[in-house]
């Protein structure tokens, strides 16, 4: 083992210091020959030493001193990146627009139902539109809206009134407020009279939510 180490050392010395054509060159010349390899090695060692023992500890200390501030800044950056100011403004505008589809209070609900009744009358349907009792309805947790149920009962003696009923349903979809038709029951008797029962659902804002901005 020792011989191998010595041989290896000798080979390394030969590779580093051999002067072509001068096998027994003096040590000084051999060392000069090794300089092109030794100089970069020494420079590498110096650089590594400076990096490890001088610069990195200094950087580490400064980073530690600013760690809290940096974390806060990073958090701010994350918060900023979650949404741009323009997107926030666009969303606010759209939310305000969508808010118009909701019914703000019971008096507005009454107005909406009155309007529906008038449209039914215009199509030769007699009937009643009325809001349901809300006392038993609990909006879902985290829901920003609550549903306002309403019922309607329409009758007509005109056997040809079926098509006007369909146009009345279209009015629900095209209304300024969101109106969901959740149940429709149509009965026809022997004389050709129609009785229609409807269950409607309007959308109101949850009482604990502010109007979207």
């Amino acid at each position, binding site marked *: 083992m020792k011989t191998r180490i010595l041989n290896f050392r000798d080979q390394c010395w030969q590779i580093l210091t051999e002067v072509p054509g001068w096998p027994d060159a003096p040590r000084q010349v051999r060392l000069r020959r090794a300089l092109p390899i030794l100089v970069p090695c020494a420079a*590498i060692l110096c650089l*590594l030493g400076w990096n490890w023992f001088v610069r990195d500890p200094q950087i580490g200390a400064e980073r530690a001193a600013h760690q809290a501030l940096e974390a806060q800044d990073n958090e701010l950056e994350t918060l900023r990146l979650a949404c741009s100011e323009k997107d926030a403004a666009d969303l606010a505008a759209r939310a305000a627009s969508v808010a118009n589809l909701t019914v703000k209070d019971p008096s507005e609900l009454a107005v909406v139902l009155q309007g529906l009744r008038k449209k039914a009358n215009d199509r030769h349907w007699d009937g009643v539109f009325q809001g349901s009792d809300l006392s038993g309805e609990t909006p879902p947790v985290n829901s920003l809206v609550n549903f306002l149920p309403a019922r309607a009962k329409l009758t007509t003696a005109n056997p040809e009134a079926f098509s006007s009923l369909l146009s009345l349903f279209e009015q629900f979809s095209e209304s300024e407020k969101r109106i969901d038709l959740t149940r429709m029951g*149509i009965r026809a008797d022997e004389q050709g009279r129609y009785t229609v029962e409807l269950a409607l659902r309007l959308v109101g804002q949850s009482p604990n939510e502010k109007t979207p901005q």
Partner: protein
Amino acid sequence: MTTATDTLVEAGPVAAPSRPPVRRSPTGDNGDVLGVGWLHGSLIFAVFRRQKLQGSWSAPKPVKTMEEFGGVLDEALLELKFGGTEVFLLLENDQFVHQIEGTPPFSDSVARAFLHGRVERHEKEHAPVLWVGQPAAGLKKERSFILHMLPKSFYDGFARVLLERRLDLTRIMPLVVPVQRELDRFPIAKGRPVLVAVEAGGATVVMVAKVGDELLFARTILATWSADPGRIGVEINRSLLYANQQFGMTVDRVWLLGQDNHATAEVNAKCGTGRQITVLPTTPVEWLQSAAKLSPRHPVNLVAGHLQRKSRQRSVRRGLLLICWLGLASLAFDSWTKAQLWNADQRRFAQISATAPNLNAERERLLARNQTVQRNRDFIRQVEEQRLPPVPGKFAAYLAGILPGEIRLTELIVKWEDSATGGWSFRLEGSVEADEETAREIVAGLQRQLAKSPLRVRISETARTVVPVQRAAGSTAPDLQRFSLEGVMLEN
């Protein structure tokens, strides 16, 4: 069997030559090869171009030291107008030892390791050597090699003399190599043992080999044919007896290769009758010519391994140089990059520190903004995107379009199943004015029409009923069947 005897050539570390070497042009290389035959003091140079002899020149007097060799070489280069760089050396002197070694009959690698051990022992006792093992016919069951060993100091001195003149040594071979090559071309049957005696300057090389086969042995006798023919005869006879004794071979052919035939009579007298003795006038230039045809990779080239090792060391050195400088450059670049990044970080730290008092307020603002954004998104989704489609109206319109004339509907209910299926269900009731079988077909037709609708209706099979309406006895009214259908719509 060792033949080293008196020292004739003193070739070791070289002192400064008495006159400076001839400086040859560093760019000139016309591809010519210079062959140097240095055989126990006699020195001859020959120039070859594509292995063909261009000219030769012999030293007028024996050359014994490396200093003398340098001077003679300069003279030869001028005389021969040599324009190449490659040089080979055909060498025989007392420092160049040829030693027969038997090895165990194992593989080549084991034999080589064995020989390496022998060489190391030799180097401990003497000095570092260049060596090569030439396979020879073995005694009994051993493998046998002729170890050619040349002191490294001789090689270094010789190579330095050449390097000073921008010459490159590619081959060093013992005389037996070209002799064996020529022996294989002699007009003798293959496998027949032959003794060849070659005049080599101030000595004689005796070699016994089978034609076209391995060498049996070789020895050097420090005697010239002209000065001591009697001794030549005795030693050749001894060699014949040795071959007979050790290898059981009767050698009946003797070839004398030299510049004159002074020893022929003595050899005839000493070696007895019944042997065919052939004299072939040969000059050293012819051995150089034969050696010139051998490749630098010939297995008995002493410097092949050395040059290969040198080349490998040069490659390693170049690789090390490249790695070191590239490593330094990349490390420097990495350090510079890190410094730039650190400078940027420092600027950022300064900026953050300057705005530190406002960071909390900004954080609160952004949190509130993002909460509002999220709430607006949820609000829009809940109000606008979760709107129920107008399925009841569509279904009623579709049904009115496909309802057959025989059917009269009495009830139609469509409702949103909010919690259970999350879809729409419907129920139809009515009557069909037809007999029971026809009514069933009409209802089934209606069912098929509904299934094809864009609302993707699925009728519940268990809820489908067709029941005849009971009539009063004697009634003349047409048959009437009541039916009901229930199902779901996958449209939502």
